[in-house]
C-alpha cells in the first residue's frame, strides 16, 4: 500500500490521497503528504517531539485541524515533521506525538502550503483500506 499520492488534478492547489489500514494511519500519512510539498520529510532528523491534542466537530474538521496544527508549528516554532507516532482518534478527538526538527536552516525547503481546505475533502473506507483526500492551498 502506498502511503499517499498526488492526483495532479488541481492546477493551482495540490490534491492528495493518503491511505492506511487504520484511520490513524491514513491521517498520519496525510500529514506526511502535506509535509512532502514543503520539504523532504525523510531527511528531517527526529530530534524533537511535540505532543498534540486536536478536536473537531466531525472527522473532516478533525483532519483539517490536525493538518493545520502542523502548519501552525512550522510558522511559530520552525517545526519540520519527520513522522507521526502514537496517534489515536476517538470521538472526533485526536492525540499524537509529532517527531521532527526545528533547526530549519539545515534543510532545503521548496514549497509552501498556505492552508488546508475542505474542497473535495473525503474520508472513506473501502474494504480494509482507509483513504483521506485533501486539497491544500499552495
Amino acid at each position, binding site marked *: 500500500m502506498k502511503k499517499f499520492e*498526488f492526483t*495532479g*488534478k*488541481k*492546477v*493551482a*492547489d*495540490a490534491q492528495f490521497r493518503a491511505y492506511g489500514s487504520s484511520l490513524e494511519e491514513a491521517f498520519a500519512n496525510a500529514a506526511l503528504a502535506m509535509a512532502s*510539498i*514543503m*520539504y523532504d520529510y525523510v531527511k528531517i532528523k527526529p530530534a524533537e517531539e511535540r505532543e498534540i491534542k486536536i478536536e473537531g*466537530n466531525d472527522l*473532516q*474538521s478533525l483532519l483539517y485541524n490536525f493538518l*493545520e496544527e502542523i*502548519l*501552525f508549528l*512550522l*510558522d*511559530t516554532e*520552525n517545526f519540520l515533521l519527520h513522522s507521526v507516532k502514537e496517534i489515536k482518534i476517538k470521538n472526533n478527538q485526536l492525540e499524537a506525538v509529532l517527531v521532527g526538527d526545528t533547526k*530549519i536552516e539545515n534543510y*532545503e*525547503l*521548496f*514549497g*509552501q502550503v*498556505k*492552508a*488546508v*481546505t*475542505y*474542497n473535495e*475533502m473525503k474520508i472513506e473506507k473501502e474494504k480494509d483500506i482507509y483513504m483521506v483526500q485533501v*486539497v491544500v*492551498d*499552495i
Partner: protein
Amino acid sequence: MKEKFKQISDYEWRIEKENGMRVPAIVFASKLLFDAIEEDALTQLRNVATLKGIQKHAIALPDIHSGYGFPIGGVAAFDIDEGVISPGGIGYDINCGVRLLVTDLKIEEFIKKRNQFLDEIFKNVPSGLGSKGRIRVTKEMLLDVLAKGAEWAVENGYGIKEDLTKTEEYGKMPKADPNAVSNRALQRGMPQLGSLGSGNHFLEIQKVDKVFDGEIAEKFGIDKSCVTVMIHCGSRGLGHQVASDYIKIMEQKFGWKHLPDRELVNAPINSDVGQTYYSAMSAAVNYAFANRQMIMHWTRESFYNVFGEVKVDLVYDVAHNVAKFEKHKIDGEIKKVCIHRKGATRSFGPGREELPEIYQETGQPVIIPGSMGTASYLLVGTKKAEEVSFGSTAHGAGRVMSRHAALKQFRGQQVYATLHNKDIEVKSASWKGLAEEAPQVYKDIDEVANVSHNVGIGKKVCRLVPLCVIKG
C-alpha cells in the same frame, strides 16, 4: 458544464440562471483561454451564483482557474442587507497583492552591478518557506500593525508618507479590528512580518519592453530607460489563519450542509459573525500592506547600498484577494455592495472617490504580475470596468499545470539555465521551488492582458520584463 456557457461576443461567455442560480454568470475570455478553463472552475463559478444576495452576475476574469469554493480570478457583489460574506470568496492569502516601483536608475547602470544587487537584496529581504522577518515583533506592535497597516510602517521609518497615497485604501482598511484576530493568527504573524514568503511570491527588477499608452505611462511615472521593481506577496500565516478561524466559526453558527461545497461557507454580512470577519479580514489586509511597505523600504536601501543615491517611487499597491464595500450601479441605481475579489484587481476608472488625486484623471494603475521570469503588465482602470465587472480585471497569468506535474517535468537547474540564457538572473532558496514555478506552467499573460484590454476593463499601459528575480 462548459457546453452550458454560450458565447455572446468575442470575449464573453454566459450561462443563464438555472438550478438554484440567483443570477447569470459571465466569463471574460478569448476562445483560446476559454477552451483551457477547467470544468471545475466553471462549476465553482456557477456555485457562486447560487449564494444569497448576489447581485447582477457572478464574474470570471480571463485568468480564471479552479480554487476552493469560489474560483480564482472571480468577482462577486453581494447586497448589504440580504447578502453574505465568505472567506472562500477572498482566499486564504488575504490581500495577496502587488506593488510596482519606478526608479531613476538607468538599465545599463543596473546591469553592470546586477549580481551584486541581487546578493544585496536577497540578504535584505527575507524570502522562502519559513522566512522570518528581520525585526522582533511584540504582540503590542503587531496589534498596532493590524490597526494601521502601511501607516504603521511609515511611522516606524519604513518609507515616506507619499507611499501611502499610492496604496489602495491608503494602506489602511478603516474597519480593521485587531481584537477580531485570534491569538493563533497573531502567533503566526509575529515572526513573519517583513518577509516575502514562498510559493508564487517574488520580487523582480524589471524593465519596460513595450509602451502601449505613452501619455498614461508618463503620468504613472514610467521612464523606459530606467528599471522598475515589482513586489508580490501577501499576509503570510496570519492571513491564512484568519480565513481558517472564521471558516470554523461560520460553520458552527450557520452550517454548511445546504451548500454545494463546504468551502462556500459564509455568514450574512449584517450578522455579528459577518461583521467580525470583515474586521479581522481588514486587519489581515493591513498586515499585508505593512509587509509590502517594509519590503519596499529594504528594496530602496538595497539600491542605495549598491548604486548610491537612487530615486525609488511607488506607482501603486493593489490587493488581489479582498472584500470591500463599494458603490456600484445595479439595475440603474447606485448601490453600496460588498465586493468579493478573489484573484482579481480593482480597476477603477477616472473620477472614483476612492482614488488619490494624482490618479483622478487617469484612472488607477492596475498591476498584473506574470509568473516568475515572464512578462508583467501595467494597465489603467476604466469606466467600462465599473459598468461590466464591478470595477475589476484580471490579476495574473493563472496556472495551467500543477506543481506536482511541474516537478516531474522540470528541474530547477534547467529553469535557471533557461532564464539565464534569456538574460534573466534568478535567486531562490530552493531548486525544487524554482522548478515548481517554471514559466511554462502558467497561462500566456499576454493573452490575459489582451482580453482585459479588448473588453475594456483594464487598458494596457506598458509591458514589463524581468532583469532579475528573487523567487520566494
